[in-house]
Every structure is written in C-alpha cells, then in structure tokens.
C-alpha cells in the first residue's frame, strides 16, 4: 500500500493555478525526487501536503487516511515532517533546543508535573537531552549544541533543519532544496547523510532539489513538475532522456 497517495491535487491563488491535477504515489521506504523549473509549484505542493495551504481540489491520503483539512501540526503528528526552502530555524535558540522542540509532541509529562517538577518531568527531560544530542551527532553538529542557531554557517543551518525534522520521528520526510547554498563537498556529504538516515530510520523521503547531481545520484524515482502538473516520472535515467523534460528545462542542463 502506498504511504502517500495524492490524487488530482490543485491549488489556485486568485487566477494562478500554482498546482493542478497533481498525482503522486510513494511507497514505504522509497527515496523520491521532485524537480521542475523555478515557479513550477514544487514548494506549493509541499505546503499542500503539510497543511500550510488547503487544496482547492483533490485528495491526500497518508498512511491510509486523508489529511486534507488538517492543521500543519496535526499532519506532523501523523508522521510527516519537513524542512523549508528558506531556512526556518528557531534562530535565537541554541542548536540543542531547536532539536528538543521537535520532540514536543512525544513528551508525556503534563502541566502539573512541569510546574511542580514531579513525576515524569526530570526523567523525560534527561531522556530528551540524550536523544537530541544523538541526532546532532548524526549530523555532525554535536560540538555546536550550545551555539545560537542563527550563528551557524549556512550549510550547518540546513543540516540542523533536517536534524530537527527527524527528531519529530516522521514516517515521511519532505526536504525542500536541502542542498541549496551548499558547496559541492557539502552536497556530497549531504547525499551520504540522506541515504544513511533513510536506511537507519526506515524513512520514506520526498525531496525537492535543483542540484541535478544530487537528485540523480540519490533518488530512485523522480517526478517532474512543470506549470503545476506532473509531466513525467521515472528512474533518473528515464528522466534524463525524456524529451518533455528536456523541453521543460529548455536549454537547462539536465545532467
């Protein structure tokens, strides 16, 4: 059964159809790419999947249930986490706190335990610190844990965003241009990390990316979006040789 099944999804902003008749199917454990020219509607598609926008039409089934009309936090709690194209960290907070916040909805101690520091408070807080640190280690950010997030270099901010999204323990991870602004070496490292977390956590990943070497290198399957609609899908090799895709990228390098 598909983990994510999107049928006929559309979104209009006034007269502009940013996404129209968008259909995708993603199985548990897949690593899928979503590419397309600037303004094709990729980020809008993510915003629809995560409840930031309500679709004009269409259905989104996640894990067998519709998530249309749910609020973003409810969709996250169902098991979809994301990163943002324009980094959205909790910029004045420490790197560690950024990750700890993502655990919020897994924390069980209540308000009374909080205020009177009873019961599960200490145990869970300590557990949180440990788990959050573990994620930072995976992303080679452990030595930065006390740093204020906005002071990190750009590449590390991107990695922190992924670490934070993972800490929410999603089934499906949506990455919006995770390599944007990274140098080739950082991009290479990121590719390795993405492959590794997918295996380690049994994740399903859908990623938007302009860096073709990353998409072609890491994704098993790719969807191509143009003017809001999916115009092609297939393996990296199929996509590279698809005439419609080449046309959509008119003149742009696909390799």
């Amino acid at each position, binding site marked *: 059964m598909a983990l994510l099944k999107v049928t006929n999804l559309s979104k209009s902003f006034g007269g502009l159809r940013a996404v129209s008749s968008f259909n995708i199917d993603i199985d548990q454990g897949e690593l899928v790419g979503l590419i397309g020219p600037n303004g094709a509607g990729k980020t809008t598609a993510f915003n629809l999947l*995560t409840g*930031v926008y309500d679709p004009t039409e269409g259905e989104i089934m996640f894990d067998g249930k519709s998530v249309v009309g749910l*609020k*973003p*936090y409810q969709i*996250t*709690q169902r098991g979809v*986490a*994301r990163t*943002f194209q324009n980094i*959205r*960290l*909790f*910029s*004045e*907070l*420490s790197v*560690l*706190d950024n990750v*700890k*916040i*993502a*655990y*919020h*909805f897994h*924390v069980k*101690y209540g*308000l009374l335990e*909080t*205020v*009177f*520091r009873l019961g599960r*408070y*200490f145990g*869970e*807080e*300590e557990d*949180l*610190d440990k788990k959050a640190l573990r994620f930072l280690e995976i992303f080679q950010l452990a030595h930065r*844990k*006390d740093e*204020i997030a906005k002071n990190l270099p750009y590449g590390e901010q991107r990695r922190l965003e992924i670490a*934070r*999204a993972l800490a*929410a323990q999603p089934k499906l991870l949506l990455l919006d241009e995770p390599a944007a602004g990274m140098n080739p070496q950082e991009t290479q490292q990121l590719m390795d990390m993405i492959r590794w977390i997918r295996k380690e956590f049994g994740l399903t990943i859908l990623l938007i990316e302009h860096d073709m070497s990353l998409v072609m290198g890491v994704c098993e399957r790719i969807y191509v979006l143009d003017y809001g609609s999916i115009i092609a899908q297939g393996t990296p090799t199929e996509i590279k040789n698809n005439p419609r895709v080449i046309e959509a990228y008119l003149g742009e390098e696909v390799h």
Partner: protein
Amino acid sequence: MTGMRQKTKNDLLMLAAGIVIYAVVQTLISVGFIQDYWERNIVYVCINIILATSLNLINGITGQFSIGHAGFMAVGAYVGAIMTVKFGLPLAGGIVAGALGAAVLGFIIGLPTLRLTGDYLAIATLGLGEIIRITILNIPYVGGASGFMGIPKLTNFTWAFFMMLFVLFFIKNFVNSTHGRACVSIRENEIAAEAMGIDTTKYKVMAFTLGAAFAGVAGALFSHYTYIAHPASFTFMRSFDILTMVVLGGLGSMSGSIVGAIFFTWVSAFFAEWPEWRMVIYSLLLIILMLFRPQGLFGNKELSLKMFGRLTGGERRGTAQGN
C-alpha cells in the same frame, strides 16, 4: 541524574535566597524600621513583579504582543473583593477567585484575538482592556464610577512576597519545560513551530490565560491593600506601565522583568509628587533604551546561578540559559 540534581539544587538555593530576603525585610518591618512609605512600595514591588513576569510570559516568551494587562488585573481586583466583602471569604479565597475570573476571561478573549498578529493583536488587547474597565465602571454592584469601597486591608508583605515567589517559580518551571519551549518556538518562528507538531493556538491561549490569571492574583493583592478598587486604577496607562517594566528589563527575560519592576516601582515612588514628570522620565528612558540597548537591560538572557558560578570560577554547565 546530574541534570535533576543540578536543577533541584538551583531551585532550593533560590528558595533559600527568597526566604532569607523575606526574613530580613519582615524583621525590619516588625521592629518598625521599615514603615509606611517604604513598606507600601515594597508591597508594590512584589505586585509589580507578578504583573511584569506574567506579561512577559505572553509578550516576551510567547511573542504575542498584548497590552491589555490592566484589564485582567482589574478583574482580579474586583472578583477578589467581591469574594471577601460580599461573601466573607478569606484573602486566599479572594486571590484564587480573582485568578480564576481573570483566567476565564483571558481564555475567552484569547481564543479569538490570538488569531491576530503584531499590531492588530496589540490594538485588540488594548481595546479589550478598556472594555473591561468601562464594563466595571457601569456595574453598580461593585460601586460603578466611584469604585468598590470598604475592602478590608488583608494584603501584607508576607502575602505579597509569597504569592510573588509562587508565581516566579511557576513561570520559571513552565518556561523550562517542553510546554515553555513550545511557547518560545512560537515567538521564534510560528510556521516552523506548527511544522514541528506544536499546536500553536493551544499554547498561545495557554500563555495568555496563565498570564491573565497571574495578573488577577496581582489585582486581588492590590485591591486588598488599598481599601478600594477603582476603575481609574486600571486604565491603559497601567497596562503601559507594566509593558514599560517588561521592555526595560528585556522582552523574554524573567530576570529582566523582575529588575524592570523593581526599578519602575521606585522611580514611580520617587516621582509620585510630580506625576507629570514621571511620564516624561519614562518616555526619555524608553527612547534612550531603544537607541542604545533596544533588547532591554537583559536582552532575552536570564540572570542565573550559573552566571555567578562563572564569575567565581565555578564549573560552567552546558546549555544556554534555556529560556
């Protein structure tokens, strides 16, 4: 285990410091060394600390710019007085009822208004604060425009101080928990907070309701100290005063709110005879602050035992002050 021991140790140290301060001041009051003027302003310091730290929970920690705090203080003042005067309850009953009344109103007001952001929220809360005051003004049962008179003077330094201590510990523990971090994440980036699974509406309303409840506590303490609850005590000027304390100290910093409240209370006391100058001074202070230290005295940092530890060369432990 170390985290737990450290936190508990810090709490006990702070509690001990609080009790020492209390013992010293109470002794000085008992022997008559601290009298009228000083005693009154010390009680006002406690009340203002409650007001400032509770507004900071809404404005500084959660980032929702509310400027109607005097309205909730008024509800606490009147509901508390009704309980003691009309129903003969003791002060404790008045405080609890005042807090509950303000909390209920905070919840009812917060639910729709917290959809608004920034300037709109500020204007809405300002307006609602005034609506509360004008409503009270028109209720003969509580004295209308001439005020609610004949309230017994039940508040004393002990009550004010321990209520303040309770509120401070409550807010501090709240902030240093997953619930507090949820509030902070809303201030930092609401969209990201939602994307991390945080019910932002719930936490905004929670912070607003808690803040209102504590303003209610301050109101009940206040009306039982001044014999009278008068609508003129709860105009938007009072809201503005509380906001000034918070901004002076640094939005988001509890220590800042405490220092801001102490400073403000004594400056006000000093200028009590020249009320028109008081406003000039505050306006000047705020302008100077905005020019040279827009983040307030403390920024959003906390004064902590860790800081003292660092000064005295003690062990420096991990995370940033976790506000």
